């Protein structure tokens, strides 16, 4: 170390240079979170498209972007990776003045964004292009419509069923359930009978686990609803979860746990989720959708999927979970964005997406292709695609009433109330009061 001293001016200068270097480095880091796929076109349009940060999701979005660029070399697609909650991240993007051209939304945020006027209605494009939705799941298309306008394009749809542990069935000598949603041999009575044989109290092994948050499926199966209408809150929208049919649906869930004891007790449900129980081979049937890739890491046992059973003398039913693409209403590249959305609903991107094993294709022909049926376990992927004809949209409004409704449902799920009809009546009353307040606040008459 020499004794040459550093002047204050020189020190500050060097500090500034070092600071600038660090800042430049950090700037580079921020770019790592956004993938920009360069296109060789001379005058490019950059389309900003949202994607989640799951590595599988990023890879397939990149692959699809490259497919699009092959036919549209003048379009550069910037994939905006979002962390944490998909919906809240996109809300903050819009609020912060950093909007993407193409948003990727679940129906709830889609309806809320639509109500706020953030999404571009696609009807003019649809009409101009004579675009038809032939071959696309009708229930998915309907879920994209809000207030008589088409505000999204479906991309991936995800109904659910029961994944089941084949080894537990084999060990108990129980035949696998049917894979046909309409099978007369697969009612809830059949399920209880099957689950009873698969339950071993000593081993803490249960026959079935049905996720609480999937309760709308049980409502639909019993002919019940949460709200009198979904999507847009009108002057007539009411919470109707206090129907006798809804009480029957929740009673069935209660009975599985407390009467027949074929499902983990109410106290254990929140403590050790069905996913962990299924992964550890301690529950034979578990309600979930195709989107959970983690199942494909299972090496300890064989597994497959079967439909949800149906209520005797009623149609099968399940709930459709979706992610749709929408165009930001302020986008400067709306024409290109529309072209991209149309492209996403064609064979190749749909095949690429379902081949990841994360979803069911909105383009139904893809669900009959090897890309869907053979690319990934489970063996009977067809159960998920067949579910589309029995699928109902999620019971969602363009406001948030979960914080009012859920505590009442908690009481039912957690067995802290014996009076299911009374609890549902109180839930409906409270939600309806919140709906009245919402209408007053938002000028809906």
């Amino acid at each position, binding site marked *: 170390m020499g004794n040459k001293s550093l002047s*204050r001016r020189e020190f*500050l200068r060097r500090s500034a240079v070092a600071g600038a270097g660090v800042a430049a480095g950090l700037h580079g880091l921020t770019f790592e979170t956004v993938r920009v796929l360069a296109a060789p076109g001379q005058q490019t349009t950059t389309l900003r498209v949202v994607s989640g940060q799951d590595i599988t999701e990023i890879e397939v979005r990149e692959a699809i972007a490259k497919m699009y660029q092959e036919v549209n070399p003048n379009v550069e697609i910037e994939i905006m990776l979002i962390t944490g*909650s998909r919906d*809240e991240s996109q*809300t*903050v993007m*819009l*609020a912060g003045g950093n909007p993407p051209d193409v948003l990727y939304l679940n129906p709830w945020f889609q309806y*809320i*964004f639509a109500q*706020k*006027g*953030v999404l571009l209605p696609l009807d003019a494009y649809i009409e101009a292009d004579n675009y038809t939705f032939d071959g696309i799941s009708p229930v998915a298309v309907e879920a994209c419509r809000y207030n008589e306008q088409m505000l999204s394009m479906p991309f991936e749809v995800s109904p659910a069923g029961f994944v089941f542990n084949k080894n537990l069935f084999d060990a108990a000598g129980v035949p696998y359930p049917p894979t046909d949603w309409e099978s007369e041999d697969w009612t809830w009575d059949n399920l209880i009978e099957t689950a009873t044989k698969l339950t071993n109290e000593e081993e*803490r092994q249960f026959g079935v686990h049905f996720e609480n948050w999937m309760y709308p499926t049980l409502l639909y199966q019993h002919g019940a609803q949460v709200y009198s209408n979904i999507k847009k809150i009108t002057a007539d929208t009411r919470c109707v979860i206090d129907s006798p049919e809804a009480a029957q649906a929740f009673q069935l869930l209660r009975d599985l746990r407390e009467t027949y004891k074929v499902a983990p007790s*109410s*106290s*254990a*449900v*929140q*403590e*050790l989720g069905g996913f962990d129980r299924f992964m550890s081979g301690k529950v034979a049937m578990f309600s979930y959708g195709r989107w959970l890739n983690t199942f494909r890491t299972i090496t300890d046992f064989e597994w497959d999927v079967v439909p949800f059973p149906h209520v005797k003398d009623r149609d099968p039913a399940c709930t459709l979970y979706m992610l749709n693409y929408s165009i930001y209403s302020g986008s400067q590249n709306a024409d290109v964005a529309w072209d991209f959305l149309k492209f996403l609903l064609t064979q190749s991107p749909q095949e690429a997406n379902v081949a990841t094993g994360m979803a069911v294709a909105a383009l139904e022909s893809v669900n009959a292709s090897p890309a869907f049926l053979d690319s990934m376990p489970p063996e009977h992927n067809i159960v998920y695609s067949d579910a589309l004809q029995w699928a109902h949209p999620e019971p969602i409004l363009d406001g*948030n009433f*979960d*914080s009012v409704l*859920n*505590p*009442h449902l*908690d*009481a039912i*799920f*957690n067995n*802290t109330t014996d009076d299911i009809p009374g609890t549902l009546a109180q839930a409906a009353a409270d939600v309806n009061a919140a709906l009245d307040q919402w209408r007053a606040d938002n000028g809906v008459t």
Partner: protein
Amino acid sequence: MSSGLQTYNTTTTLQPVAQVPRWQQAIRKNLPGYLFAAPWLIGFFVFTLGPFIASLFLSLQQWDMLTPMKYVGLRNFERMLQDNLFWHSLRVTLLYTVFAVPLQLAMALLLAVLVNGQGAVKLFFRAVFFLPSVTAGVAVAVLWRWLFNPEFGLINFLLDQINITGPPWLSSPYWALPAVIVMSLWGVGSTMLIYLASLQAIPDYLYEAAEIDGANVLDKFRFVTLPMMSSTIFFTLVIGIIGSFQIFTQIYILTNGGPENATLFYVLYLYQKAFRGFEMGLASAMAWVLFLIVLALTMIQLKLAGRWVYYEAEEA
């Protein structure tokens, strides 16, 4: 200001010296200091003071983050006061504060006394007790989720060993809040460390004098240790109460406010209003009410501090 005044040195040569204004002198003198502090200052103005002022402005607006704001005056505050869940979340938070903060301070003090002194064992346990406080909040929440598991959890296993059937903890509306209070003891390590430093600063002659006066161990703790540590305890009490009103991460991961809103803490409800209910104006109003509550509690503590807090410097 060049007034024509001239100063003269002791030599025969007369040389005019420019009078530098005092403010310029101050800037020249202090500039390096401000430059060094600039990163923090910029961060404070942009990320703390700016949002602080902005939230006051937002509390008077109806704003959903997606459409233009609308001035509504005090309407957000009015709505907040009419909201049952607002009062419920405040009650939950107050209950937590009342039980968790004294427990945390008592536990930290007990641990500090236990590990005070020399020796490898005490040094080892200092590290052991401190380690949890540097664990990330999310990891802690996940860990406690397992500990509270009614079927496989360690807590119910231990209770079972003494023939007590453990409650369902996090899925019970009656036990969820006590469970969160128990969990809060996990992070007392940092407070313990502060207490330890304070303990070690107490001069030995005070204990010797107390011994001469016939004090036993408890007397020494009561009449020497506690008064000498009172300023430290006061500091941790103030910080503890502020922190308890801001609890969020663990609850978000552990219960998300459930079951049946039993753990709907104030800041969690504020977050839900902002990002799930799109009521940023109302959430900002809630943030300001929280600020005023914390400010009021701190002022009350400062007022009462004179009665029980001993400052050695003041005495001197």
